[in-house]
Each structure stands twice: as C-alpha cells, then as structure tokens.
C-alpha cells in the first residue's frame, strides 16, 4: 500500500497545469520526431536535454519522457501510411499496417496501433509501480549467456514465419548478419570488413538500411505500379475509433502475450525493437488468424505495437533501479539524471521518492494525454494518403534523405540509403523477405557479442547455455520454436502414416 500512497503523491505532483502543458508540448514534439525517419527519440531528447538544465528535475523528466512517448506513438504513422518505419521498433508494424492502408483501412490500422501502444505502456507502468524492486533483482540474473538465449529466442520465433521458401528467409537473414558485422568488432577491438574505407568504420546503420529498404523500395515499387498509392481512395469516416475498438477485445490473448514479451525485453534489457519483432512472430505463430498475417490483419499491427510500447516503457525501469539504460533514449535520459544531480541506481527509489513517483505518475498521465491527442488526429493522418502521389513521393524521398543524413551527419549514408532502396526493390521483385534481413541487422551484432562473451566466460563450452534453469529453459524454448515447422510437418506425416496403416 505504500506504493499506492506514494503514487497518489506522485499524481499530485504531475497533475499541475504547468506539468500538463509540458506533456502536451513534449508529446507533440515527440510525434513529429517519431514521424521523421532518422530523427529518433534519442536524438530528440538529446537535443532538448540542455534546455532542461535550469528546470526542476521532475518537470524536466516529464517533458523529456513525454517526447519519448510521443516518438513511440509517432513511429507507427509513417510505417502504416508509407511503409517507412519512423523508428526501428515500428518496422514490424509495417508488415500488416501498410497492407491495411493499401486496402483502404489506414484509419483502422492507426487506431489499432495507437490503442495497442497505450495498452502496452500502461501494462508496463503498472509493472513498474508495483514490482520495481523484484524486477530489478531479476534483471541482475542476466549475464552474457542469458542475453544470448533471449536473442536466440527472438530469431527462432521468426524462422519459418515467412511464407515462401525457407531458404530465401535464411539467405536474407545471412545477408543481414553479414551487414551487421561490418565495423568495429567489440570483442577483439579490431576492424572488420571495412576494406580501408573510413565511411565503413561505423558499420551499416540500421536506420539507414531500413529507410532505404522500406521507404525508397516502396516508392520504386509504387512508381512501377502506375504512380499511385493503393488505398488513396480510402474513405474517411469519423467512426474509425469505435469501429476499431469493437474488434479489439477478441485479441485479448495477443495483447497479453505482447505485453509480457515487451516487458520482458524492456527489463532484461533487450529493447523495444527486438520486442516488436518477437511480439509479431509469436502472434503469427499462435493466433488463429496467423495465416492472414502480412496481408493486412489488424492483429498484426496490434501485436508488435503493444510489445514495442511495453518494452519502451519498461526500459526505464533498469535505468532507474540499476543505472543501465534499456534503450538509446533511456541512455540519454540517464545522462540527464546525472546532470540534474540525481544518481540513478538502487537508492534512487529511497532517496528521491518525489522524483521517482512524480515520474511514474507522469507515465500514466503522459500516455493518456498522448492517446487522446493522437486519436483525435487520426483522420488528419489518414487524409495524407489523399494527396496525389506525384506530390507526396518527392516529399517522402526528401524526408527519407534528411532522415538518413541525420543518423550520422554524413552524405555517405544518403547514398547508402539509395543503394538499400534499390536492394529493397529487387528483394520485392524476387520475392525475398525483408524482415529477416532487418532483424539480423538490428540484433546480429548484439547476439554475436553476447555469444562470444558467454564463450569467454565458459572458456569455450557450449554447456554454459544450459548451466542454469533460466538460460536453459529459454534456449530450449528457442530450439523448439526454431524447429516447430519441421516438428509439425513430422507429426502430420506420422499421423498420416498411422491413418494409412489403420486403413490397411
């Protein structure tokens, strides 16, 4: 009950007009930042951080976290409308969100995405409110072997989800791994595959690749299809919110699974991006309508968005209790805490009660304010699709180029984006799936360093992955997931054989 008292104290702090104003400003800025690819939440927070040094810490963190919520909401908009993920964690949202927009259901997809984000975030905040100390202890159990197990599970839950040839999936994934390994090798401290090119020192940045593969690739495909967006004829009806909300209750299982997956990934800290992929992969595997995923299924929008938001929100927990950031944005916020004179870590909850509970209360309020704001704007967002292709396409290319440039402030990335764009187009034509490539690019080097750290610790024994129940069970689950399609095929064959035997 102490928590509840403290939380109400927090609401008293956060519910002032002054703070509500900061929430509205922050969320508006965040949505804009989320919409612009490349200018991620981490950059937005970093740019505004110095402005907050003269504010009281609680007001400052309310403003900055509101930007973060806004960016989480905003990332979904361009993914759905233009197949361009504004943020890494909204890549998985494109898989079903964009087909929905093409079918004329952009408004439903947007409402679904925003609502799912809200549910995920609130679930995670509740977790933070009541279970912070327990969860913090749990996160300490994660060493290199456990991290690798989680990453392995993410890959495994993705294998076999592509329609078409599994070999194409594997080829695409391998290309992603190869791209991910360019740059500095964190374990030996030497450069790999840079071929003496200074531009390659930084490796291939995920955002540049994604903007190119999805955004530019999509534009190229649309040009071929006769210079128009499918779905431009979408009718704008104002009842989108109610229409969509009616469909949501039957997806309760997906919501719950994605919330759990998201919180898990946020706390451990795997981050929002792998969480969204894993949420999508699991929903596709377990949902009754899994076969329709990829063709424009609302559940396919809900699953990754819920997981991404649950992860993005719960990523603040390890930052507050352990001082390790669960996401790049949390890393920038962590720097802010230190400058405001707050030391994140195990004692923050004891020594800075007002700040911590003010922040947690602002998480509830910020998400409510954010949901109301973005839902009212849905018709506006959806109306963008009615702008003629010949006007919007150059604008998109322009925004993509700025986005790619912003990632590292180099022209090289803009050229890389165009190369990735052509690659995205070819993948599309040759029916190679893009998601495995993107997943390998974002998680490849993390998984590699976790694996090699684990090997260093165990002196080269693979047994380390089954050395305790936590790690062992995740790994085993991962293996089952990876071979699930094969197992199912085998079972079908065996029961088929049995039936034949009985008949004979």
């Amino acid at each position, binding site marked *: 009950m102490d928590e509840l008292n403290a939380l109400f104290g927090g609401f008293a702090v956060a519910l002032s007009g002054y703070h509500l104003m900061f929430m509205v400003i922050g969320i508006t800025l965040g949505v804009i930042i989320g919409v612009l690819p490349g200018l991620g939440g981490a950059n937005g927070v970093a740019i505004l951080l110095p*402005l907050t040094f003269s504010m009281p810490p609680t007001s400052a963190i309310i403003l900055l976290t509101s930007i973060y919520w806004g960016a989480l909401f905003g990332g979904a908009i361009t993914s759905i409308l233009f197949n361009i993920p504004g943020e890494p964690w909204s890549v998985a949202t494109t898989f079903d969100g964009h087909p929905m927009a093409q079918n004329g259901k952009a408004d439903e997809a947007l409402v679904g995405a925003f609502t799912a984000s809200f549910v995920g975030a609130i679930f995670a905040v509740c977790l933070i409110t009541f279970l912070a100390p327990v969860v913090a202890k749990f996160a300490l159990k994660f060493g290199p072997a456990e991290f690798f197990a989680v990453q392995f599970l993410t890959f495994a839950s993705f294998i076999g989800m592509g329609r078409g040839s599994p070999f194409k999936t594997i080829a695409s994934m391998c290309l992603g791994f190869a791209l991910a390994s360019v740059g*500095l090798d964190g374990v030996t*401290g030497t450069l790999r595959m840079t071929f003496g090119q200074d531009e390659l020192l930084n490796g291939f940045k995920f955002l540049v690749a994604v903007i190119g593969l999805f955004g530019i690739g999509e534009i190229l495909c649309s040009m071929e299809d006769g210079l128009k967006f499918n779905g431009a004829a979408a009718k704008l009806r104002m009842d989108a919110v109610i229409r969509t909300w009616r469909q949501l209750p039957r997806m309760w299982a997906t919501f719950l699974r994605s919330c759990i997956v998201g919180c898990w990934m946020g706390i451990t800290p795997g981050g929002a991006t792998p969480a969204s992929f894993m949420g999508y992969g699991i929903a596709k595997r377990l949902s009754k309508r899994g076969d329709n995923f990829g063709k424009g299924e609302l559940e396919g929008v809900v699953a990754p968005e819920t997981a991404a938001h649950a992860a993005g929100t719960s990523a603040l927990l390890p930052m507050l209790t*352990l001082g390790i950031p669960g996401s790049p944005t949390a890393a*920038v916020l962590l720097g802010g805490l230190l*400058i405001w*004179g707050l030391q994140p870590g195990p*004692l923050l909850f004891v020594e800075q009660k007002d700040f911590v509970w003010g922040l947690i209360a602002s998480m509830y309020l910020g998400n409510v304010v954010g949901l109301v704001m973005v839902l009212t704007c849905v018709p506006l967002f959806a109306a963008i699709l009615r702008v003629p292709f010949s006007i919007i396409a150059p604008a998109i290319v322009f925004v993509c180029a700025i986005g790619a440039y912003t990632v590292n402030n180099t022209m090289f990335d803009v050229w890389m984006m165009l190369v990735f764009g052509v690659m995205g187009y070819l993948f599309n034509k040759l029916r190679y799936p893009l998601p495995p490539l993107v997943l390998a690019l974002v998680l490849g080097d993390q998984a590699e360093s976790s694996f090699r750290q684990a090997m260093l*610790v165990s002196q080269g024994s693979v047994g380390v992955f089954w050395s305790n129940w936590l790690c062992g069970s995740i790994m085993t689950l991962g293996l089952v997931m990876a071979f699930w399609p094969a197992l199912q095929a085998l079972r079908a064959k065996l029961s088929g054989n049995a039936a034949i035997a009985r008949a004979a």
Partner: protein
Amino acid sequence: MIRTGVSKTKTIAAALAASACLTSPAWAQRWEPTKPVTLVIPAGTGGGADQMARFIQGVVQKHNLMKQPLIVINKAGGAGAEGFLEMKASAGDPHKITITLSNLFTTPLGTGSPFNWKDMQPVAMLALDQFVLWTNSEKPYKTTKDYIEAVKAGDDRAFKMGGTGSKQEDQIVTAAIEQQTGGKKFTYVPYAGGGQVAVQLVGNHVDSTVNNPIEAVAQWRAGQLRPLCIFDAQRSTYTAKVTEKEAWSDIPTCKEAGLPVEYQMLRGIFTTKNAKPEQVAFYVDLLKKVMATPDWKEFMEKGAFNQTFMSGPDFEKWLTSAEAQHADLMKKAGFLATQ
C-alpha cells in the same frame, strides 16, 4: 595515465604556471566564433565522455558563456576513429572541438586507424578520470591483497574481469594488473558500456571490474559493490562521505595496497589542426569559465575526478609521454594492430 616519475605537485605547479601565462594579455587580437561550434564526441551516448560533453554544453548554455550555440554530436564509429578522422579532415575549421577519452591513443594503436593526437590542436586537459578496482560485496575479499592472493592461488584465467570495450583503457589496466599476479591471467570480458559492466558485477557474472567512479558509485552506495583500491599515485582528495562510512578518500591507492599499478584517463578538449593561437586561447578561456562554475565543481566531486588543469606546452608534453606509455603498455599486452 601511468606515471613514471613526475610528482603530482610538480604537475599542478606547472599547470598553474601555464594558466597564469594564458590569462595574461599575450594575444593582441581576440577571436570569437562566427558560427555555431560543434563538439564532436568520439564515443556513444550515455558514456563518460558523452556525459561530460553534454554537461559542458548545458553549463555554457545556462551561464550564457558563448554567443554562438554549442552543438554536440556523437561520432562513435570504429572506437571513436570516426570522430577523430572528422576532426582531422576539417583541419581548417576552427569551429570544431572534440572531447577525448583514452581512445585518443588506444584506437590508432589498436585498430591502425590513420590518425594521431598531433592531427589536432590540443586545447586543455579538463580532468583525469580515475579507475577503481571493484568486487562484489558478497565476495570474501576485503582488501586488494586478499583479492590478488586469490587470483594467484586460482587457476589461470579462472578470474573474470569485466570492462568496457576491447583493447581500450579497461583492458589495458587489466593487462597491467596481470603483470603483478605471478603469471596468472584474467579472462577479460568486454561489454558495450560502463553502466552495464557495473551491473554485471552486481549480478556476479564477472569477478571484478576497473570501472570509473561515476559508473559504479550508485552500486557502492547501495552496498552491492566494494572498492578495493584506486589506480592513482595519491588517494582521492574528496573527503565527503559517499556511503554511510566511507568517502572517496578512504579508498587506498593500489600502490599502498600492494598492487603497484597507476592509470588515469584523459578528459581533454582538442580543436582542429590549423586553429590559430587566438582561437585556441578563446576555447581555453571558455573552458576556464566552465570550470569556475559551481555546477562543474559538483560534477567533479560526484565522479571523484582528479582535477588537474593543463594547457599549452605542458599539455603537449603530457600528451607525448602519455602516448609513449600507452604504446609501451599495449605492446607488452600484445594489443598493437601491427603485431
């Protein structure tokens, strides 16, 4: 950095002399930035250099110390090579400054990236960041001696040392410790960031770390980690209690604890190669104003920094010897790119 002979008092005296020089009206004409100044961070967001750079940005803005804005960007690729190569490439643009960490020396030596600190113009040393030997407080080692004895008695590579990055400062300190452990090596496990390293130690996934004070102070205060010794020639000068019983000044130096290793990391500011003396003087002056603020003093104390200020020829001399010592240490440890 590892010091061989120069005593600290002498260094400070030299630094004071140098700063006295700079405040005198040695330059006839003054220079001021005519466009926004970019502060390049050759490291990722959230790390020690990043924190300090963003802090400087905040102080400059809060106290209105410069007419033009100060913009901070991270160029972390290739262990910071990306940022340094950009500084090298913009030799003619005095509106760029960079903040350093030990990768100023370790990156060119360890990866063979084509740059050297001489490709930039040194402005000033802001402070030296300390390194502390930490263990989990559940472990039985109360002193450095207990710990080193345990390492000596154990199997080779049985003890795991966690650290940030590979062939960078943490692993260099580890290699220097290994020279004192009777031939027993550590298994060095590289992680992405200092905060993560501290948490891995709390979770008992590694046996010890050489985290900077600011990276592990929260866990120390919570009683989860125990500092064994500090890799400086003298104890810290900060006597305010950090935990209930101890202050930074209560941590013995590694040398007095029987582990004769010293290492400190440079937090310094550089500008581009062709900057004119009056341009360098502007930045020295700006940094002095930053360092005079109460915000800066609080920041220094929180991170238990060694506050040594240097600029001009003294700083260059310091850099030359620090580079030679890094080359020597990395050669002994087998970390050189050309080996």
